[in-house]
């Protein structure tokens, strides 16, 4: 299945950028790259990608900062966090800040592609519902609207 969507890959590891670019382009996606949060935010505003693959530990502005700024701007951009931070609190934190999916590194490229396709096909309302459901499972509380 070939796609036409645009994916922004944000990671400070050049190897990961290259790997994801090859995988996504092989599936027909158009890819944009950013090695830090600052660049990522600029490209999100200027080039309006359909989905963002976002690393957390980065220089200048980290993944948390990007999520926070997107939330502040009321952005509806779909975000998949891709991080080597694997603790429950980190996952919950990302979902709270508005990330729609959380994939831990190391990841299987094939599985990641499935997640990307799923996020792209889902409606914003479904994604929001899914995010709240996962957050509820993780924190065991319904403290958000």
């Amino acid at each position, binding site marked *: 299945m070939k796609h036409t969507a645009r994916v922004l890959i944000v990671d400070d*590891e050049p*190897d*990961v950028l*290259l*790997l*994801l670019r*090859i*995988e996504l382009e*092989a599936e027909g996606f158009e890819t944009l790259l950013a090695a830090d949060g600052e660049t990522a935010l600029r490209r999100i505003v200027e080039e309006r990608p359909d989905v963002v693959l976002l690393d957390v*530990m*980065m*220089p200048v502005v*980290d993944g948390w900062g990007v999520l926070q700024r997107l939330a502040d701007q009321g952005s509806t951009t779909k975000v998949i966090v891709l991080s*080597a*931070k*694997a*603790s429950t609190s980190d996952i919950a934190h990302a979902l709270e800040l508005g990330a729609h999916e959380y994939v*831990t*590194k*190391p*990841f*299987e*490229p*094939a599985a990641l592609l499935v997640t990307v396709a799923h996020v792209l096909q889902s409606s914003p309302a479904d994604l929001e519902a899914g995010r709240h459901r996962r957050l509820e499972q993780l924190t065991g509380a319904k403290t958000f609207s």
Partner: protein
Amino acid sequence: MAADRQELAREARVVGLRDFSTPSLEAVERRRWQLWTVAFVVMVALAGGLVLMASSGARSVGLFKHLPVRVGLVFLTMGFALYVLEKEVHLRRLTRLLLDERVLTAALSNRLKELAALATVGKAVNSVLNLTQVLNIILSSALELLSADGGSIMLLEGPDELRAVCVRGHSHAEGARLKMGESIAGHVAQEREPLLISGPASRERFKNLVLQDAPVDSALSVPLINRGEVLGVLNVHATSDRQFTEYDLRALGLFAEHAAVSIANARLYETERAHVNELLELDRMKSEFVATVSHELRTPLTSILGCVQTMQRRELEPEINADFLETIDRQSHRLLRLIEEVLDVQRSATGPLLQSKTIDVAQAVAQVATTQASLGREVSVRVDGSLTIDGDPEALERVLINLVDNAFVHGQGPVAIEATADDDGRMVRLSVLDHGPGVPVSDVARVFERFSRGAKVTAPGMGLGLYLVKTLVERQGGHITVTQRPGGGAAFHVGLPASPVRPKPQQVHQ
């Protein structure tokens, strides 16, 4: 006590006190007065009779004419006198016993007061474990116990210095310091004997005598000793008319024994608490370390596994294939380095002894710069003159590489290594300077600690590199500090012992 009481009751009964079970001095006096009044009256009557008898000779009338009556009268007089004397002896004895008892009672009540004060202090002191509070309670209680005007507690700091840690009234200033053996408190701490001073203290007796602001009439100074160890000195003094006595000194000495135990306990508690906090902090850092290590190990694995799986699934162009293989190779080595770093930390603290060789600094620094240049890192080098140090060549290389690595990871190039001799020539100073954000003041204290990472650090690392550096430097008899560079950036300074031996010329040019 019971025997005394029985004797008292017996005597009281003998002298004929009405309430003989609880005789009082007043009752005894009353009884004596009665006795002598009766004795006086009887004696006057008898004497009158005798005079009458003698003067009336021939004209004797009635009873007095008979000789037996006369003799009987004389015996009666003598008998009565003996009776009075005997009673007087008992009365005197009773008076003495009662006086003894009164003194004893007074002493007992004093002792009770003293014990009550001690009990109060014990309770108050045991209710708090904060050293400052304990000291305050001790001093307040001591002043109250002795109705003193002022005083101080001085604690021993280091082997031979006393510092005033708690002060009341006109006394030593808080924080004042005395050497062991100096002035009154120093003398008491050294001799371990309580001291009572009446009137002004003599300069001949006390070395470097420190005088109070206001004239002191009387002073007490007792050592605070716990388990044979002098903790400090408790001083109290009076500036009014109050004169302390030997009894006061004894009371304060007793009090000081309790106080010393309380101070020792409070100190022990504070030490333990600090230790617990240290352990909790270490535990927190270890948890953080596990999270960091997990992150650091996952990062190279992500590239390795991702590349391998993509290569298995897809037909890639040859040059991308080559790129992926190179990535797998590089990231595998990165993983290996991380594992070695963790093991190095373990080894650096407990590993085999380091060598002590004469190292040419210029040569060692140049070697590090060359290695870094091959990685595309620009390291400039400046060595002042011909410097040599005593140390382990491998450890030194490790120290320099880690510091340079740290500079590139957290800061920005170019990085400079500078080596100079310290002013007295006993140490060689190696400085690694970068152009990064520097180390924030809040992080300086813990930057060399195990597992610690700067509050705002996002660069990769496990928080072990600088700890390893510090351990290796210290095991070579050196020290390390970090400062902020005037123009921005961090400066790490390593001091290592300079070698007295000059290296052979061929070593320098090797």
